[in-house]
């Protein structure tokens, strides 16, 4: 089995990294380049870089910034935000992204996922699903970091599943949501949104059957690190890369 992956998430807005709560109240948390260099030095398993306002601003991905970051990133890199065409994907892969996350475009033009998968292979298509729990306990998924839509992972190689309710709360992943999606698909699922402790990671890997755990706030705002997370997870019986 591949090792479970511990993945820091970098959220980019305007000119710097930010972190919010429930997709709002963004706080600045530093420069992207600095973060990439540090994570590269620490040999993290994989990095997720999301330009969170590209789509709502009607911008394409910022290829130059991704190019600069990828030049310092000798680890796997998933890039998302503003990806709407096959040409966007081609350019992102060319400048150094290994996988491309697709959110809004996937919902508006589901055929795009198939087209990208046929051209570049499913393995580089990550469908990003932002889900919110309804009062009756069912879920709905969102795009544009908040507007409602239904997404389907047709032809995708991986799901980046983010709980909007838990995002930035440090109160733990939505294990039930993760389990629901993990059981429904045969591709890897990256759990995202809510990580506050290493125990939360163990819980969503075990109970939620996630293949990877993404986190941002707990690395930005606490002393916890991806390396210590993996040491904890190894002690808890998971297979990790140290």
């Amino acid at each position, binding site marked *: *089995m591949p*090792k479970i992956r511990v993945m820091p998430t970098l959220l980019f807005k305007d000119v710097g990294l930010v972190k919010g709560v429930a997709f709002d109240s963004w706080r600045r948390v530093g420069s992207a380049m600095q973060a990439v260099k540090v994570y590269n030095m620490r040999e993290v398993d994989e990095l997720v870089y999301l330009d969170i306002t590209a789509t709502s601003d009607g911008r394409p991905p910022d290829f130059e910034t991704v190019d600069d970051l990828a030049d310092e990133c*000798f*680890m796997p890199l998933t890039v998302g935000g503003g990806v709407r065409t096959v040409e966007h994907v081609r350019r992102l892969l060319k400048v150094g992204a290994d*996988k491309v996350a697709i959110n809004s475009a996937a919902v508006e033009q589901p055929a795009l996922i198939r087209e990208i998968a046929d051209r570049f292979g499913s393995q580089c298509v990550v469908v990003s699903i932002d889900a919110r729990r309804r009062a009756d306990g069912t879920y709905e998924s969102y795009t544009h970091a908040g507007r409602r839509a239904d997404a389907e992972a047709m032809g995708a*190689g991986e799901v980046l599943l983010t709980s909007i309710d838990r995002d930035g709360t440090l109160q733990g992943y939505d294990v039930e949501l993760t389990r629901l999606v993990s059981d429904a698909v045969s591709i*890897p699922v990256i759990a995202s949104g809510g990580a506050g402790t290493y125990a939360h990671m163990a819980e969503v890997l075990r109970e939620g059957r996630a293949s990877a755990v993404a986190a941002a706030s707990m690395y930005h705002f606490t002393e916890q690190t991806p390396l210590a997370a993996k040491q904890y997870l190894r002690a808890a019986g998971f297979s990790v890369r140290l």
Partner: protein
Amino acid sequence: MKQVAVVDYGMGNLDSVARAIEECGGRPVVTDRAAEIESATHIVLPGVGAFGDGIRNLRARGLDEILREHAVVGGIPFLGICLGMQLLGTRGYEGGVTEGLGWIEGEVRRLEPAGEDQRIPHIGWNEVAFTRASPLFAGVDTGQDFYFVHSYHLVCHDKEDVVAVTPYCGGFVSAIARGRILGVQFHPEKSQRLGFQVLRNFLAL
């Protein structure tokens, strides 16, 4: 200085591969031109994408013949990465049935889960266990983790071509070697320290 032709056939993460080669002390030239491939000391065929498109793109640019002339006949050390390794096979089954370059006898088939929780694509860090010694892995211990992201794998007909295997989906070939023609299913350019060691070993050939 090693001059490394990184073959551009419209498929893949050319910049990542070129940057990693630079970090490992080589001088990468991203190219699809015969003259630059001929004058290179090493050739790397990267690749992200589907087998059918990959082979069609190579042929459309005449690269199948150029690479054969300089790698197979001329003996310039050659490294195929991921799809770049798979394309060396006889035949691929991704995006229809397509003839490959045929330098290594074998078929490129989809990974089949061999148990519960074996998810496809195979994404992440997994073990590379050596089946025989290869200069490509000098200074690397067997069983170390490298980064994979793929749904297909090369099934080799001749066991002699196999250098390493990875325990997933019943086990698949993760590195091959026939003379100076080498291939890896994982991404050395994204496998940090150990990946760089493999690239340095290749550049030392």
